[in-house]
């Protein structure tokens, strides 16, 4: 049975496959394995609001789950109402935003700095306590059956009382902002938390990319016909790349269009050493589903190699590629089978091989054929950017900043795959963020690393802006120098940077000109040099 599972928070969708008689517990274990979490902390729901109430050993069929269902999951014990839990009180979800913002940090045993909001929800025992947020003070108090726990929490927070007072004094509306700021501080102060957070995000993001889109769809349809036959696997991959280029499969013996991602019926059962596949484009298909012009591919299996000859029907030009079955097919196979494996490094060599295969088919077969077909029939040729060879596209992407590459990935299927190249992201990461030795060794999934580092910088930036804001409440915070990792360029500014020791005693400037001429002394200098 196959299921789609979607994270409630990140909306990330994964695919999970379980053996057919399967209990709820087995499914949880499978999902937990995928997202690298503990199955006990996993909550599942079909409708995003009610958790599955069945006993762990009950079979999925008896709960009413069928293959293909979309299941929502969360690690937040209070996100779904579970029937037994007391967490029905909707008011307790007022903290929603701040909870999800610092969710990952909270899982690292909710540091005191994260503030009470988080501590209250962090407890993983639903039913025993209800976090309640008082809107006036921005405080969250946990109602626990035994009162010692609460006392303990208060004493934990004891030295943070000042902060709470500040929150209380401020207007009610500023309170949520403060709690978010708190969570930033908590999450970004100690280096170890950063690493944990990164791992957590990597576990939640990604994996869906390990099987390239062009393979995923055709393999899903044709997996029964492949069955370990390597040259067939290769044919399926070439077919996938062709469909992705904009071609439509066409059954020349029956004279009809093939819907979806299938190959012509019975292609795998013929014993002929030469296979023929026909393709056309949607614009050349008549309403009665006959085809004006088409492209023919001839696939010749010669021992270790598969040769593919492509030509526009009626033209003499023949395009030709040779594929090494023993090299390409195992890579496709392992990427397809290793869908669930979380080890990025071993898969990356296979991913590169498949990318090379795709590039070869694209540059040497599908694109030239598409251009020739459109020239012959007078159709508009493929868009100019799409006609660039894959290497040139990569070269252009290499010259763009990371955020623009990510936007390019959202343009179309082709660019999505080109921009998923791990080496590209590794290069971008090293350009835009300082590399640590550990990261160099780890190598793989650089895009996720880049995105995480990016988010980190953004939060720091937000924190910086908050500090410079004229509210003034933050003077009582235990201030720390942020940014344990490089790039000091954007933490410049604010009185704190110029006068680290004086902050508490100085009135804050609200807008206006700087009180002191900037940069007449170094940021860490003592006041003596200032000549006061």
């Amino acid at each position, binding site marked *: 049975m196959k299921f789609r599972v979607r994270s409630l928070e990140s909306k990330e969708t994964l695919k999970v496959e379980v053996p057919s008689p399967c209990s709820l517990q087995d499914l949880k274990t499978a999902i937990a394995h995928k997202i690298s979490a503990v199955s006990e902390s996993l909550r599942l729901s079909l409708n995003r609001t009610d958790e599955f109430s069945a006993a762990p050993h009950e079979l999925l069929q008896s709960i009413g789950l069928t293959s293909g269902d979309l299941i929502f999951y969360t690690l937040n014990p209070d996100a779904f109402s579970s029937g037994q839990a007391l967490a029905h009180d909707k008011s307790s979800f007022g903290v929603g935003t701040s909870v999800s913002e610092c969710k990952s940090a909270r899982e690292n045993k909710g540091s005191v700095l994260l503030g009470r909001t988080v501590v209250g929800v962090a407890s993983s025992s639903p039913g025993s306590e209800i976090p309640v947020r008082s809107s006036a003070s921005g405080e969250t108090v946990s109602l626990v059956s035994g009162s010692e726990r609460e006392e303990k929490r208060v004493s934990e927070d004891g030295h943070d009382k000042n902060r709470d007072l500040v929150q209380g004094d401020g207007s009610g509306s500023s309170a949520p902002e403060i709690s978010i700021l708190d969570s930033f501080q908590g999450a970004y102060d100690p280096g170890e938390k950063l690493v944990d957070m990164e791992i957590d995000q990597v576990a939640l*993001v990604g994996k869906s990319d390990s099987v390239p889109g062009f393979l995923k769809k055709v393999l899903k349809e044709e997996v029964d016909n492949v069955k370990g036959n390597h040259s067939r696997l290769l044919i399926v991959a070439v077919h996938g790349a062709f469909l992705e280029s904009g071609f439509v499969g066409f059954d020349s013996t029956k004279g009809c269009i093939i819907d979806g991602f299938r190959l012509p019926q019975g292609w795998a059962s013929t014993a002929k050493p030469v296979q023929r596949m026909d393709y056309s484009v949607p614009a050349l298909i008549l309403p009665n589903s006959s085809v004006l012009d088409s492209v023919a591919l001839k696939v010749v299996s010669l021992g270790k190699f598969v040769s593919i000859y492509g030509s526009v029907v009626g033209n003499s030009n023949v395009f030709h590629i040779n594929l090494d079955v023993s090299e390409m097919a195992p890579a496709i196979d392992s990427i397809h089978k290793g869908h669930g494996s979380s080890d990025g490094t071993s898969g990356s060599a296979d991913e590169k091989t498949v990318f090379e295969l795709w590039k070869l088919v694209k540059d040497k077969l599908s694109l030239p054929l598409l251009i020739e077909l459109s020239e012959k029939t007078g159709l508009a040729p493929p868009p100019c950017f799409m006609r660039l060879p894959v290497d040139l596209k990569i070269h252009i992407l290499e010259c763009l900043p990371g955020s623009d590459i990510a936007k390019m990935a959202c343009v179309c299927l082709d660019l999505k795959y080109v921009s998923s190249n791990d080496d590209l992201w590794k290069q971008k990461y090293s350009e835009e963020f300082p590399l640590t030795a550990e990261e160099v060794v780890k190598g793989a999934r650089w895009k996720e690393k880049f995105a995480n580092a*990016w988010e980190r910088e953004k939060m720091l930036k937000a924190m910086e802006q908050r500090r410079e804001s004229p509210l003034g409440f933050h003077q009582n915070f235990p201030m720390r120098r942020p940014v344990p990792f490089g790039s000091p360029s954007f933490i410049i500014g604010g009185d704190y940077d110029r006068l680290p020791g004086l902050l508490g005693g100085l009135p804050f400037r609200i807008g206006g000109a700087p009180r002191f001429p900037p940069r007449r002394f170094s940021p860490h200098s003592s006041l003596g040099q200032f000549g006061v």
Partner: protein
Amino acid sequence: MSESTEKKMVRLRSSDGEVFEVEESVAKVAKTLQDMLEEDCADAVIPITCVRAPILTKVIDYCKDQVMISSSSSTTNNPNERTEQERKAWGQKFMEGVDSSTLCELLVASNFLNIEGLLNLGVDKMVSMIQGKYPQEIRDMFNVVNDFTPEEEEEIRNQNAWAFERDPYYKKRSSSK
């Protein structure tokens, strides 16, 4: 002066059949042609199959200019040699008014003919066109069809959501969402 010996002419034929006659030194700016000429495997007309005439004209303009720079700098040592700034300005002028489809064709041509300088100019131009644009703007600029299914598009947008939010390096822009 080497010019007297290099008066040999080379004929190039574009994909649409137009024949261009250029000095050998000009043709040799393109590494691909240089290799062919040095191996003497191109005596009559060299077909440049993937480059149309208007594009080939532009490419030849570039090559002629390169020959002019290199010959003037080798004979008179310094005065005519361009500074870095002048080179940049010249490159910008050369690429001025080039639209996206011409640019792509120029890229393909310089890639095929292996003219590194022109390729770099083209890539720089391309980067400046793409930078800071949102996916739909990029699609509009290059006439690219959005071939994602709605689910796929949602997925890829979610995966790359970080890039769409206010970024720390650039000024805040109006959001496309």
